[in-house]
């Protein structure tokens, strides 16, 4: 039977070095952490690095999590900050701006061309959204978080979350509609 401990319980156990508890926290938040990191960095590799590092930073600073029941929100703050720092560091390293094509993930040889096109269209459309809208639409439509959960963890009013989600979806649909060929791909996805 799968254990469903609260965040607070898991944090308390992780504080004492309980590997299983920390593992459960990672399992619970790895996807949202990646989604938030992706919404900030716009690149798979950076999102992966930022999300993974954030878990390690969170573990090292676990005593600073004043409200363990709100571990998720606290972690997302770390993820956002790590992601922003990562971008800042990279922008200092790279003199050239990253071309839009380079923002997509490393291609695998067997990737289907249509999937690639859809992904690139989505990535481009997402990169045009404000950061907070990217976070919300990814957490809601990709990770399946509820409005209330997003509001709590991003520390935003629930109404603001709904509003951002509405505008983000609208903008994404518009961007997708404007791309020739994408509706066909979406039909297949459906």
């Amino acid at each position, binding site marked *: 039977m799968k254990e469903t401990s609260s965040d607070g319980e898991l944090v308390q156990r*992780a*504080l*004492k*070095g*309980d*590997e299983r508890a*920390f*593992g459960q926290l*990672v*399992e619970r938040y*790895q*996807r949202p952490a*990646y989604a938030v990191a*992706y919404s900030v960095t716009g690149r*798979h590799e950076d999102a*992966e690095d930022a*999300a*993974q590092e954030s*878990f*390690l930073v969170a*573990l*090292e600073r676990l005593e600073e999590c004043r409200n363990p029941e709100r571990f998720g929100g606290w972690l997302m703050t770390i993820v956002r900050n790590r992601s922003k720092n990562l971008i800042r560091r990279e922008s200092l390293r790279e003199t050239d701006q990253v071309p839009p094509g380079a923002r997509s*993930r490393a291609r*695998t040889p067997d*990737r289907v061309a249509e*999937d690639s096109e*859809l*992904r690139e269209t*989505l*990535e481009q459309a*997402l990169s045009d959204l404000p950061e907070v809208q990217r976070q919300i*639409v*990814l957490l*809601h*439509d*990709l990770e399946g978080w509820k409005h209330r959960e997003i509001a709590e963890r991003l520390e935003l009013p629930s109404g603001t979350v709904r509003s951002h989600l509405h505008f983000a*979806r609208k903008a*994404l*649909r518009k961007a*997708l*509609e404007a791309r020739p060929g994408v*509706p066909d791909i*979406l*039909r297949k*996805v*459906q």
Partner: protein
Amino acid sequence: MMEWLKQGTARLGESGDDLVLAEALRSLDPASEDPNYWLRFRSWVMAEAASELARRRMIVELTVEDVLASWSRAVLPVALAAAVAAIALIRNTGLEDAAPVASAVGVEELLVVEVPLETRPVLLSPDAASGIVAFASDIY
């Protein structure tokens, strides 16, 4: 063609989710290409976190008794050796030359100690009449 693409409206699920958009966004999920992605993600984090988790376990497992025991293991032999050495030293010193025992000394004793027995100034003695004082008394 999908309704939302024709009419600009989303196909919503019971919970109000935009199902088509959610499906499209799923292509951004790294697991869409690599089903074991999240397993590897977690494994990497856990491997990197192992040392920190071990450190935390060690801190918790160390009770006060453990700390005292580990402390005493190092300090007690040294303290015992020092005590034995001190006792031996005191005994040896006592046999060779007994140190004078300090005794209480009164204030008066302190004032007269090392003062010559003749406390009356020589110049004021009857024998000193021909001295400087006598000479002075003649003048005044």
